[in-house]
């Protein structure tokens, strides 16, 4: 099974009580599947929105984007740059 790194930022890192986690996911899993696994692994992540903003390898993606071995998935709170 491919392993991906999931990173949490700002308010989501506070909620999850961590900055990152490595997760093994089924082949051809999507970012949405990764999110579902996070909810299983980290009970506190139940407080995340249903459809948070996500990035895959430094680009914003939709939840149907597919992940592969070594990918970095990020959960992004509402952006507030500038």
């Amino acid at each position: 099974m491919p392993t991906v790194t999931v990173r949490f930022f700002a308010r989501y890192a506070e909620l999850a009580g961590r900055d990152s986690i490595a997760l093994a996911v089924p082949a051809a899993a999507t970012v949405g599947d990764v999110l579902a696994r996070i909810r299983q692994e980290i009970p506190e992540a139940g407080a995340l929105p249903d459809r948070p903003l996500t990035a895959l390898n430094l680009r914003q993606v939709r939840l149907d984007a597919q992940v592969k071995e070594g990918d970095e998935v990020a959960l992004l709170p509402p952006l507030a740059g500038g």
Partner: protein
Amino acid sequence: MMDYLTRNPIAIEPLLAAVQSPERGGTCVFLGTVRGDDEVTGIAYSAYDEMAVAEIKRILDETQARFTSARVMLQHRLGLVPLGEASIAIAAAAPHRDEAFAACRCVIEEVKKRLPVWKKELHADGTTTWVDPSGKQVARGLHDR
């Protein structure tokens, strides 16, 4: 090459030097500074650094592809930014002012939409508040985009 992200006060001169040239007669600078709303004493900025740098490169490249005579540069400050100090500075230079203003505006609008940066307001009473993209404060409940 200047850093796109800094933890120090932003200096404008290096931004100007990155965009100005004799053939570019119009230069426009935008500064975003920390506002003193609701007894805010400062804002702590944090980022997904690697993605923020990649996104800034993409925004600058796309803006220069759209405004082909313009040159644009930006720097975003992270960490605690006190009231009145700049959290972001953008410089745009072009042969004429219309294109300089338009390119500068384009960069800040894309930054607002795309840059993975977050801000936590610090208040005079010692409390802190994450701020959502519309500027509304989010004390507890979570909001999707």
